[in-house]
């Protein structure tokens, strides 16, 4: 009898996620191994148990109405988004980085540390660099005073910011900073 494969391999087998060749090799092993047959039977039973749950549970009509209403409001707001967000959303971080440089030159600001690539490419050196770039964009767009660094990440909105960073989405991150602007008046 061949050596028993790792349990994790049987998970993929039971779930039907293996390519033909490894699947056939495991089948051959199963023919001569009681322990692995029991293992696969248990895993298949676990998977089968989940099938008892309704995959698409019915939702309350009121909840669906609210969802559609909120989506329509969000769609309407798209057309009124600040121009800088639309541009950055459309052309990506290359536009943002270019804009930061232009703003810095025009306003004769100290040269900002512009990240070589921003979060969409997972190469930003630090969140602070991203924040600094966005802050300059916002200042340019609104004519407001730059926020001190500690105000860029207020503790009471840290969870929200963490989530946005996990989402790794430039548009949402910019929305966050624009809403910061509104909160700060």
């Amino acid at each position, binding site marked *: 009898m061949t050596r028993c494969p790792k*349990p*994790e391999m*049987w*998970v*993929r087998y*039971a*779930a039907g*996620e293996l390519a033909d060749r490894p699947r056939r090799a495991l089948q051959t092993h199963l023919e001569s191994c009681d322990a692995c047959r029991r293992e696969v039977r*248990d*895993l298949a*039973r*676990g*998977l*089968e*148990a*989940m099938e*008892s*749950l*309704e*995959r*698409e*549970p*019915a*939702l*309350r009509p009121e*909840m*669906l109405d*609210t*969802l*559609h209403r*909120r*989506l*329509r409001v*969000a*769609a*309407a707001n*798209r*057309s009124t988004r600040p121009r800088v967000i639309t541009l950055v*959303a*459309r052309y*990506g971080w290359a536009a943002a980085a270019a804009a930061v440089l232009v703003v810095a030159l025009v306003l004769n600001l100290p040269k900002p540390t512009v990240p070589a690539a921003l979060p*969409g490419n997972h190469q930003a050196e630090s969140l602070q660099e991203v924040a600094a770039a966005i802050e300059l964009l916002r200042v340019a767009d609104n004519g407001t005073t730059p926020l001190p660094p500690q105000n860029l990440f207020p503790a009471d909105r840290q*969870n*929200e910011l*963490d*989530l946005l960073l*996990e*989402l790794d*989405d*430039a*548009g*949402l991150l910019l*929305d966050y900073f624009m809403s910061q602007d509104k909160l700060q008046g």
Partner: protein
Amino acid sequence: MALRDKDSDAQERQLAAYAPRVYGLLVRMVGNRDTAEDLTQETLLRAFRAFETYRPEGKFRAWIFRIARNAARDWLRRRPLEPALGFDADWLEAAPASPRRQSRPEDRLLHGERASKVEAALRRLPAPDREILLLRYYGELAFNDIAKVTGEPLGTVLARAHRALKKMAELVPEEEP
């Protein structure tokens, strides 16, 4: 009347179609129907707002479920109190049986009993293990995709799935033929 963007209409329909499955995941992650409804809306709104920047590098479904999973995780981190059991008793009410399963009263009864045993077994799993099974079932995601959603190595995801499936097999009696 304001003109509506055709893209927005299509995106709205596309996202709304995910609402039941996203809700199914969330209600079992947060254990509370009202919260799950709120988080379902938040998830789909976030996805809608992010549509402009969405790059189809992976599966769209995995992207949606990643947003949902992170929203639930964020809520669980922020919630004020750790509930003893943490789950409402209305999961089953929130998940009525499909018409196929409702065809005969005895089928409905059997299905209801079994589903409640599955619900109870799920609640006994550690949250990270339960999450893997839920992402697989509601998102219909392969383990590779689940690893991307949770940000864990594939080996960790498979080890969690193995532990969770064995526990489910132990806790849920075999279905009558």
